[in-house]
């Protein structure tokens, strides 16, 4: 018998093993839901799948009686817009400051301690300030995401820039490169795939901040809807929304990964 650490699953076994927890969760839910519904047909906590379809059908396909909007679509668009705006803004600032900090010791001495301290401020604690300063509209939600993930991105990309072998920087100098040329031709292109990695890690927090901000003050959005229908214990809406958010999060993660593999083949062959 081989040691456990040396036993590798075949590709098919791997798929089956990976699918098992999902199937199990689903089965346990169906089983428990059946038991509860048998006892009390009006149970709201674990609705049957048919309830999901009827509840979501209304939100997806029928315009709201109050506003005439398709709520599910509207929620998704609003949330995605806030999320993407926040993430793109953070990525741009994080990339520029991270690389510059990593490249220029004087700037690093100047900014690094400040960013370290700022990154320790719990973003949720300043949410009230954001609401006061930026109002209850879109801007405060985007800003929460921005404040939540930018310090991490800056610090991560700064350290990734510093991790580039000093030999490379010396080599570039012996080829006559200026500071600016080293930044745009040696550092930046090598940090870009690492930015994608960092973004994949910060998408989780980004969603967290988005939903938190929407829960507290919004007119629409995925997080807003979940917290709204909580009052009526509408698990038939909450659960599909959670699944949808998870699916979106997974999709972004996957897209970023695929993009990185296409755009930076050299980065992925080296591992």
């Amino acid at each position, binding site marked *: 018998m081989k040691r456990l650490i040396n036993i590798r699953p075949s590709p098919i076994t791997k798929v089956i093993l990976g699918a098992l927890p999902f199937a199990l969760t689903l089965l346990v839910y169906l089983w428990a839901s059946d038991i509860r519904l048998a006892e009390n047909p009006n149970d709201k906590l674990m609705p049957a799948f048919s309830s999901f379809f009827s509840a979501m059908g209304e939100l997806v396909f029928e315009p709201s009686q109050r506003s005439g909007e398709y709520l599910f679509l509207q929620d998704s668009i609003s949330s995605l817009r806030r999320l993407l705006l926040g993430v793109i803004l953070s990525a741009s600032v994080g990339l520029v400051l991270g690389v510059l900090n990593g490249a220029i010791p004087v700037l690093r001495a100047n900014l690094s301690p400040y960013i370290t301290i700022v990154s320790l401020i719990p973003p949720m604690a300043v949410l009230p300030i954001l609401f006061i300063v930026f109002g209850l509209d879109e801007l405060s939600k985007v800003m929460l995401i921005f404040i939540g993930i930018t310090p991490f991105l800056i610090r991560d990309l700064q350290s990734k820039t510093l991790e580039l*072998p000093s*030999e*490379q920087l*010396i*080599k*570039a*100098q*012996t*080829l*006559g*490169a*200026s500071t*600016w*040329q080293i930044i*745009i*031709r*040696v550092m930046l*292109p*090598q940090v870009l795939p690492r930015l994608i990695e960092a973004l994949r890690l910060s998408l989780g927090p980004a969603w967290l901040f988005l939903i938190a901000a929407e829960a507290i003050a919004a007119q629409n959005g995925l997080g807003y809807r979940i917290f709204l229908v909580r009052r009526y214990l509408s698990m038939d809406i909450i659960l599909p929304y959670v699944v949808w958010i998870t699916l979106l999060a997974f999709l972004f993660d996957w897209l970023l990964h695929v993009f990185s593999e296409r755009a*930076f*083949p*050299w*980065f992925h*062959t*080296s591992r």
Partner: protein
Amino acid sequence: MSFININNIWKQYDQTIVLERVSAKVEAGEFITLVGTSGCGKTTFLKMLLGTESPSRGSITMDNIPIPQEPGADRGIVFQKYSVFPHLTALQNLILAREFERAPLLGKLFGQSRKEVTEQAQAMLTLVGLEHTDDRYPQQLSGGMQQRLAIAQALMKQPKILLLDEPFGALDPGIRADMHQLILKIWQQTRVNIFMITHDLKEGFYLGTRLWVFDKVRYDPQAPNAYGATITYDIPLGHTDRNTYKEINESLHHSDTLVTRTEHE
């Protein structure tokens, strides 16, 4: 005046003296190999030529001008590894040298000028025996090919001196022999000044026109850092007798057991 003048340089970190009383004159076109035990300061010496370290005392001048305290285009370098850029293909790695020169703002060339430098880069790839690797990334090249690329890249700027820091240390013996041929060919064609550190004394003797051995002449067992290394042998090569080789070989091996050596003294 000679091409490079090394005037009584010392290098000291806090209480540790790495190099002391190093003096030498180097004429243009010499190929100098540097040997010595690890930690003897030969890399520190190379870094002074490179400009990433500066002497604590004394001076090094090239063409009568002190060597600047940062790396520059007149001094090329090849390290044991990490010498090429992993995010650029072999060809792009060479083109980059021209792009730094001709595109100060974007660091990138387009159109006709790019075509022009591409031809130069391809010629350089052919010179080092990498003619069919244009589109390959460094990780897709073997260790020997990566070092060929690194050498080609350093040559793109036509440096006055080429510094090699154990460039073949990580290569297999067979490949190393090919690299020796390559470096000799390049040296004969360009007559660039070469300083090459090596661990392999045979390599040091075989290549080059002059061999420097770095070692400590004074040693205090109670204060091992009190004295630095200097050039103990400065041998013109090509007509070295077998005894000298043996002598140096022994002195290098003895340095590993310094206490025994002081007893001999």
